[in-house]
């Protein structure tokens, strides 16, 4: 097996940890993988941002705003959005190297299973949709392709109106923007939203608000990276 990122051959190293249980086939070598920053240290419990406080100032702001209070129960991210991850996501998402998703194959599922064990049975997994135009342009929905890694059924009750890319907007523009989602089907179960990156949390909150207004009891988010 060759590393999906650096193309070097991956030589599995046997140690006490994987003596009895061999590792799953790695598609990224150890040194590339060490470039990612897994969020298992101190981070905000509500939005996964690297922080010494249990609830970061950003989340305090969100929760003090009566419009957004309690809309999103929490967001769990897998990695911090560091330069290494940004490079990988850029190549994957914008330059269409679809296979790079498999770098996150196991970790994405492992972290999900670990965090959402309480809700996994009951909740419905919903990837954040793309607008039709964006879908045509990109060829795949990154959120949906991540959701597929979870090997669980997912639903698509939302659709999206075409607009400017979130990544091209400033924070202020994002927060002031109007809700880009429309709801097609009502959902009465809790929902776990899946997306690639949580930056301000606006997109996820827009989707969550819509779902909640239509009778969904609780909304969580699970994202690959926390910006």
């Amino acid at each position, binding site marked *: 097996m060759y590393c999906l990122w650096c193309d070097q051959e991956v*030589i599995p190293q*046997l*140690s*006490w940890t994987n003596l009895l249980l061999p590792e799953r*086939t790695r598609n990224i070598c150890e040194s590339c993988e060490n470039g990612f920053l897994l969020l298992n240290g101190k981070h905000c419990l509500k939005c996964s941002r690297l922080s010494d406080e249990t609830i970061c100032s950003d989340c305090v702001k969100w929760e003090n705003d009566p419009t957004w209070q309690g809309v999103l129960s929490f967001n769990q991210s897998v990695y911090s959005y560091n330069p290494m991850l940004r490079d990988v996501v850029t190549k994957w998402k914008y330059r269409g190297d679809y296979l790079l998703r498999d770098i996150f194959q196991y970790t994405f599922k492992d972290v999900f299973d670990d965090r959402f064990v309480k809700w996994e049975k009951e909740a419905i997994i919903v990837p954040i949709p793309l607008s039709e135009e964006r879908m045509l342009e990109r060829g795949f929905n990154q959120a949906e392709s991540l959701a597929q890694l979870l090997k669980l059924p997912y639903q698509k009750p939302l659709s999206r109106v075409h607009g400017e890319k979130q990544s091209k907007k400033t924070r202020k523009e994002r927060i002031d923007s109007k809700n880009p989602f429309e709801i097609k089907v009502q959902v009465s179960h809790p929902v776990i939203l899946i997306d690639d990156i949580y930056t301000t949390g606006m997109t996820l909150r827009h989707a969550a608000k819509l779902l909640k207004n239509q009778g969904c009891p609780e909304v969580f988010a699970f994202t690959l990276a926390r910006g």
Partner: protein
Amino acid sequence: MKGNWHLLAVSYLVASFTTISINLLYCAMIILLYRHQRITRIQCIIIISSLLIFLSALILEQKESPINSPLPTPHSSNLSGTIVSSVTETDNKIEFQFKEDKSDQKTLVTIFKDTNSDQDYSSININFGAKCTIIGKQEIPQPSKNPGQFNFQNYLKQKGVSFQVTINDKKNVSCYGSSKITILHKLRSGFLTSTDKKLSGYTSSWLNALVLGDDEGISEETVEAFQRWSLSHLLAISGLHVGLIVGIFYFLLVKLQLLTKEKAQNLLILLLPIYAVIAGGAPSVWRSSLMTVSFLLLVKLRLRLSVTDVISIIFLALVLYDPNLLHQLGFQFSFMVTFALLLSKKIISRPYSKWYIIFSISVICQLSILPLQINQFYFINPLSIFVNLLYVPYFSFFVIPSMFFTFLFTYLAPPLSRVIDDLFKMIHQPILKLLMEIDEFLYFPLILGKVEGFYWFIYCLFFYLFMKNLEKNKSNLVLKYGCLLTFVLIFLAVKPYLDPHGSVTMLDVGQGDSFVIELPYRKGIFIIDAAGTMSADFVTPSNKVYKQVIKPYLYSRGIAKVDSLILSHNDHDHVGSVPFIVNELNVKQIVVSKYFSFSEETLEILNQNKIPVLAVDAGDEIIYGDQSIRILYPDMDKGTTNENSLVFYTELGGLRWLFTGDIDEGIENEIILAYPKIEVDVLKIAHHGSNTSTSEKFLTHTNPKFALISVGDNNRYGHPSLEIIERLDKFNIGIMRTDIQGAIRYKFKGKIGTFFSHLPYDN
């Protein structure tokens, strides 16, 4: 298969157990790994099918093996075949393995040299690969006759040898031809003799051991001290030696610009296998040389393979080439330690201090071979970890490099080699002396005895979890499993104290007596008599019986302390091993009759070790807990040692026992008169079954059911007398004798017990 070669190596290991349940368990584990996508379908198929192939091959081989099949009757007279091993020659003998053409069986041939006449043995052309005709009688090697004793038969069997032949006249051997490898064997013996000639005996003995893999020259005392302190790995050429020698060699070639790096590497690839043969070809030498060659080849071919894969492939290659290797201790130790260290790469490559690293290597080595160590030697020496910390760096940085340079200089610059020679002596002697001092004052072994496989399973589990958490840096779990690991060892040490079984063991010490009584719950250990032998000169006492029989038995039972050493009378075949026992074990007291007089040498040793002597008289009773031993005789000085034999009575495991030393009929009659009502179940037949004792009258009077006869195989006194055997048969008394059955052990719980013989009865 990349990254998973160890699973294939393990499947060979599992197959070698040939137990179906273990094999099935392994299959299940492999399938489970496949189901969880940890190995691919192809890997799964390869592993399971090779398990089946290994298993069927090993079962087939077992069936064909000479020990399990009815033996092709050993031939006498003319044997023709080929020499299949290197030839070892010492001052008094020549030894080699010989494969007979007709039966295809290997035989160990020992030619004893006639030391009186100055005969030339090189003329008979004994070389590896030579075709030989040998006139001699094939014999089946001696099996072990006591629990814990070294089993020569098994040892040879593990090397694939089923017979041995001893030859005293060189006329009985004629050989011609040789194989090409002989050149290397000859080169080796040439090197060995030339270092002996060119250097001082002291230095050459170390050089021969550390560079050429021949430790004949190192004193037994040193070898044993190294063994006691788990330093033997320094004496056997292994990864450390090969690594250092290769390193120095490469460095010299490249830095002195004799060769380019490329060429130096090529040369090493070529030379290392040759070196492995020259260095004696022990498993550890082959392992480390082949590993080094593999790494050099991988670099050359631009292939990448993990180290664990390399060692697994070499393991498979070696055991497939010679399946007997797996049973050799050196092979097991070498692979076990190396594999454990390779697994611990993450732990020992942490950026901590050098001492931390050396310490953790030392600990990992000791812990990983602990089951092998205890199964073989029955003890561990916890402090050896610290001694390793001193001596491993000393050997790595000083002894091995200087020996290698001395070796080079004896050929390149002889005067320089003599300088190093003196320097080496000056440094090495005091440092070894230090080890002897440590050995004298700080040797506190933990004698655990023979341990059942179940406990090793538990031990290995905890060791694995310990290492796993150490790797993950989870300190609280490391602490927990470290404690559990220690607890297992402590439990093994106290286990005898929880065992309700007791035993009486008549050891097979040849012509002589030695009994060991173990009370239930380890409440007391008594030894009755400790036979000794003489050296070849018939004058100096030899420690052979102690070393080969008594000590291994006691160690295998986890015994380090003797509560009472009871001596019947002062004859060498009853007390010859006393000085050795007293010096090495913790003896609380010695019990003798009042009419027993020690030799001056023995008295001195007893005084040195401050051992109290209890002199008892007829009518006395020794009480030990709730065990009582009644002394029946002697009641006065009878003149001879045999007649003065201590006679005593005790009850153990529901039976009444009478120990009689070497008394004769006259004393028996006196006992009958003095104790008119005495009846026993087990009678130790006096004087090894001589017809001067065990009268019909005595048998009628004491009415025993069992007779114990401790007697040497084919002894020159003709013991036991046929007359006595017939007499015992006539009285319907069950006879148990050491010459035929090996050690006899009566194991009991409460008042019920069973006699076991070490050898099967029909042997």
